[in-house]
Structure formats: structure tokens, C-alpha cells
């Protein structure tokens, strides 16, 4: 039952074959069985999930009209507030904090009767590409427990690959949905910036952060996308326009006559052989499905990583100033006579991990008087150039494609002491965030040299998210025909797994 797709689960719920309580319990059992090894979850809300499931079953018994995913369980990245449920963002500074309100994403999940199983592990405040920066220990990749599950949303992606949940919520500032999807053989979508409300998403870099769906199939991601997206008056950067028809696109999967642009700069040197091979094969399959493959050039993408590591730290140095030990979260050193400033200094020393401190200091520097123009100002100009590159490319092609990441999952600890090598993971995903467009990663097979999953990235223009779902669904269908079964059916069994 837990190996079904979310849409299969939804049909079984709808026709009365299973109940949401049974389905939720099956996932809770799987979490109990395998999460000691995987460590995808920071908090499992057993009682809350079962109560929510029972409520959906009751509604269904009463003949109420329910949403398409009603009763299907989901794992929530621990960067989203859920009223009364611990929300840590993978940080010690928020240990024990129970938010007094729901994020809009959570409110939408509840409105759609999607059952929230618990909160998933992540790099502290979403800063990282491996989940090793979590203050609560790393998550392990279900394909190989000695390897990273990607980051920052490694917990959400790993929970899907370990069949602990059929759906998950992630957030993507520079690739934190797509890179974990790529290295775990799952699907992850960063919608157009402003497509999904950021209200209640604990901010890292406000002009880049975007929540989105994580799933095991393109259609499941589309169903979840429609459930969480839409205008929200509580987020002034939320786009006031209809949600793109992503479910219809995922169901049709039609790419006939579509122009697919291969970004010349996001391939070649620095990309692992198996990654390049799976990418080429996917292009052939899309061409066979009726798409026209063209090459596009985006010469300024090579500066995207540098610009990102100025813009994101700058915004984070400002956003994380709210963790000041005054109104919620950790407070250290509040002895008689201690000043507020010394309490802040001590709390932030103890509460923040190494990478978060590194980025706050870097951002403080990039924004400081005398350096602002050279660093933050120049990075903002690069952002313009990247957006212009995208605009030109989208004049030629309907969507753009590339490998999601240069390599497959690396070993836990391998890059922990080399920040620059770690940052390179996101080289192909960052341009999308800089321009605020949509991006998807879906599995394209495993690399022949290590047997680990490889991701295929699809990028679509602002509010044309439906296009990436059309292309994703077409590729997924062609790959399924080729393989005969989903990629995740070949994942090694975890000890204790059902």
C-alpha cells in the first residue's frame, strides 16, 4: 500500500478500498521501522495525523465532497510553521518552539484534508546541500545510507524514497527541492516565485525562497502543487493570478511540437559521465515523443553561483536578525545584570551552527558600507543579466533543460569542510531562483558508474509552470515504458521496511 503513488492512494480512498486511518497508520509503521536508519523526520505527529485521518474518513462516510488528495499523508519540511507542532528549521535556536499559527501552505494542506505526518529534517535554516548542517544530525540517502540525501530538503526527499510518505513539502532557495529530488530518485518542483505563499515559511532569502511539492511521480507533484498554490493576501509577494493548469498538463504529457532548449553552459566539463549519459538519453526520448530539441546559450549563468553566494547571505544576515532571544526560541546568559546585547551575542553563538554563522558574517560584510556596491550591488546586476539570458532563451524555446546536479549523491562527510565544493552542487539549479522562474527535477535513471539516481531538470517561464509538467510527464512516461517499472522499485530494501 505504501509503495503506491499518491494518486493511486487517492483513488483507493475514494472508492472505499482503504481508509485514511489505515493508510496513515501504514506510513507511521514504516517510519517506526526505517527512520532510525534514514532519519528523515525530526518530529512525528502520530496522534495529530491519526486524528486528521479519522476526520477525513468521517467526512467521506458522510458523503461530503472531498479534494483529490483528501486522506493522503504528507511529510512537511521543518521550515514551515504548523500551529502547536515543533518547528526547528534544523536549528538549536528554535529547539522546542511551537508556533502559534499555521503557515498558508499548512492551512491549504488542512483545507484539502491532506494528512500531515510530521516535520522533516533539513540543513539549518535551509542553508546547505546535504542535510549535514542540521543541528539534529544528518539524514541518510535511502539508496545508500552512507550518502547524503541532498539538501536543504534532504528529509523530505528521503521520506519519499523510503516510502515513509507519498508526498512532501519542500522549499527551494537555490535548489533545495530539486537537488534532493535528483539524488534520491524522486520528483521535486520549485514553482514560479510568488506561485505559493511564503507566509509561515521561516525566511532565509526572501527574494529567492519558494515552497513547492515533492513526490514520487509528476502527476502527484501536480496534484500537490494545485493544493498549495494560489494568491495569498498574507504574502505581498504572492502573485494574484490563476494557478497554472499543472494537473491537466501532467495528465496530458503532450510535447508534440514543443521546443526544448538545452542550455549549453549547464553540461559538459564538471558533470559526471553517468549524469551526462542519462541526460542525452532523456533528450532522445523527448525527441521521439515529438518535441524539437534546440540548443540555447546563457553566457551569464557562469556568474550565477557567485551572485547567489552574495545575495542569499546578504538577505539571510538581515532575516536571521529576528532570532534575538527576546520573544521566542533559545535564550542564553540571561543572568542578573546581563545586557540584552550580551544575551543576543551568547544566544546566537550557541544557537547557530557553523554554516549559518558563515553566511551571516559573509552577508554582513557584503552589505557593509564601502563594500555594498562591489559585492551586493554587483550581484544584483548579475541577477539582471541572468534574467535577460533566460528571456532570450525563452524566445527560442518553450522550456529549458539541463542535468539537475553535476554529480550523484556524495558520501556523508566528503565535502563537509569545503564550503566552495559544497556550493558547486547547486550550479545548475541556482539560475532558476535568481530569475524567479519555475524548475522541476525528475529521475532520469541511475549513473552506470555508481548505480545512484540522476535528475533531469526542466525550467519554464514565469507562471508557465504547466509547461514543465507537460515535459516531465512525457519523459516520465517514456522512461517507464523503457524500464517497465518506476525507478524507485529498484531501490535496495531498507532493514525493517514493509
Amino acid at each position: 500500500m505504501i509503495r503506491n503513488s499518491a494518486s493511486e492512494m487517492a483513488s483507493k480512498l475514494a472508492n472505499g478500498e482503504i481508509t485514511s486511518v489505515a493508510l496513515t497508520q501504514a506510513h507511521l509503521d514504516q517510519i517506526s521501522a526505517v527512520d532510525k536508519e534514514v532519519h528523515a523526520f525530526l518530529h512525528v505527529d502520530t496522534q495529530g495525523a491519526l486524528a486528521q485521518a479519522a476526520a477525513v474518513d468521517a467526512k467521506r462516510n458522510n458523503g461530503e465532497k472531498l479534494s483529490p488528495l483528501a486522506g493522503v499523508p504528507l511529510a512537511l519540511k521543518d521550515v514551515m510553521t504548523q500551529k502547536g507542532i515543533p518547528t526547528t528549521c534544523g536549528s538549536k535556536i528554535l529547539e522546542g518552539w511551537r508556533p502559534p499559527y499555521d503557515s498558508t501552505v499548512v492551512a491549504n494542506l488542512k483545507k484539502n484534508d491532506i494528512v500531515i505526518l510530521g516535520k522533516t529534517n533539513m540543513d539549518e535554516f535551509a542553508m546547505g546541500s546535504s542535510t549535514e548542517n542540521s543541528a539534529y544530525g544528518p539524514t541518510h540517502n535511502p539508496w545508500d545510507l552512507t550518502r547524503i540525501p541532498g539538501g536543504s530538503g534532504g528529509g523530505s526527499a528521503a521520506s519519499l524514497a523510503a516510502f515513509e510518505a507519498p508526498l512532501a513539502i519542500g522549499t527551494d532557495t537555490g535548489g533545495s527541492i530539486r537537488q534532493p529530488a535528483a539524488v534520491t530518485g524522486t520528483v521535486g518542483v520549485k514553482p514560479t516565485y510568488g506561485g505559493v505563499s511564503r507566509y509561515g515559511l521561516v525566511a532565509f532569502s526572501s527574494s529567492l525562497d519558494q515552497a513547492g511539492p515533492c513526490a514520487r511521480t509528476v502527476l502527484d507533484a501536480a496534484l500537490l502543487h494545485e493544493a498549495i498554490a494560489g494568491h495569498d493576501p498574507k504574502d505581498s509577494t504572492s502573485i494574484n493570478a490563476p494557478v497554472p493548469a499543472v494537473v491537466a498538463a501532467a495528465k496530458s504529457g503532450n510535447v508534440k511540437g514543443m521546443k526544448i532548449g538545452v542550455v549549453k553552459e549547464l553540461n559538459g566539463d564538471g558533470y559526471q559521465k553517468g549524469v551526462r549519459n542519462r541526460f542525452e538519453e532523456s533528450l532522445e526520448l523527448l525527441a521521439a515523443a515529438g518535441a524539437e530539441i534546440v540548443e540555447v546559450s546563457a553566457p551569464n549563468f557562469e556568474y550565477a553561483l557567485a551572485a547567489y553566494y552574495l545575495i542569499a547571505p546578504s538577505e539571510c544576515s538581515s532575516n536571521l536578525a529576528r532570532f534575538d532571544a527576546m520573544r521566542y526560541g533559545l535564550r542564553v546568559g540571561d543572568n542578573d545584570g546581563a545586557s540584552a546585547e550580551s544575551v543576543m551575542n551568547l544566544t546566537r553563538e550557541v544557537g547557530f551552527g557553523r554554516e549559518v554563522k558563515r553566511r551571516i558574517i559573509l552577508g554582513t560584510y557584503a552589505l557593509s558600507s564601502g563594500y555594498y556596491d562591489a559585492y551586493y550591488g554587483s550581484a544584483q546586476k548579475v541577477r539582471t543579466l541572468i534574467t535577460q539570458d533566460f528571456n532570450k532563451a525563452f524566445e527560442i524555446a518553450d522550456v529549458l533543460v539541463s542535468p539537475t546536479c553535476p554529480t550523484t549523491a556524495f558520501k556523508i562527510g566528503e565535502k563537509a569542510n569545503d564550503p566552495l565544493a559544497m556550493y558547486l552542487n547547486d550550479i545548475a539549479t541556482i539560475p532558476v531562483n535568481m530569475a524567479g522562474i519555475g524548475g522541476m527535477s525528475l529521475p532520469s535513471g541511475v549513473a552506470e558508474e555508481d548505480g545512484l539516481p540522476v535528475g533531469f531538470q526542466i525550467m519554464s517561464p514565469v507562471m508557465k509552470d504547466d509547461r514543465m509538467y507537460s515535459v516531465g510527464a512525457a519523459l516520465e512516461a517514456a522512461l517507464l515504458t523503457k524500464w517497465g517499472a518506476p525507478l524507485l522499485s529498484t531501490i535496495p530494501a531498507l532493514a525493517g521496511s514493509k
Partner: protein
Amino acid sequence: MTSLSRDDVAKLAGLARIEMSDEELVALSNEFTVILDAVARVQEVASADVAATSHPLPLRNVFRPDVVIPSLSPADALSGAPAQEEQRFRVPQILGEE
């Protein structure tokens, strides 16, 4: 090549309100030499004729109707407070003694 000394990092840590050990300051100072070199590449293409983008959406002011909507109760707002007194956040001393 730009570099930041241990004292430069100490000053930034002070501005960012983070206490740091000497060991941390030295480590960060070493890392920043490499990181700043990498990020300074943005200056190669950031010429004067390129406009800056601060945000992906061309938004101006966003308004909503000025109507009262439910908000957090005082108890909810204080629910995460490290210390509270008389329905208020209790904070360490902010001003110096007279």
C-alpha cells in the same frame, strides 16, 4: 585578492551579534579569503550600464483593505517567550544604569 583579518571578522561578528571564539574567528578569516575570491567574480560583468535587480517580481506597493481581522491572542503571542511578566515579554536590560 581580498582577505579579511581575524580582527575584521571579529568586527563583523560584533555587528551581527554573534559571540565567537578566537578559533572560530581565525577559521572564518581563512575561509573568507577563498570565498571572497570566488564571489568577487560578479564584478567582471557588473558594468555601470546594467540595472540592478533586487527582486524577481516587478512589484510596487501592495495594499489591502483597512479592515480588522482576527490576530493572535496575547497568550498565543507570548506562548514562545523565554520569559514573561504581566502579559509582556520580559527582556534583559537594554539601557545602562543611571
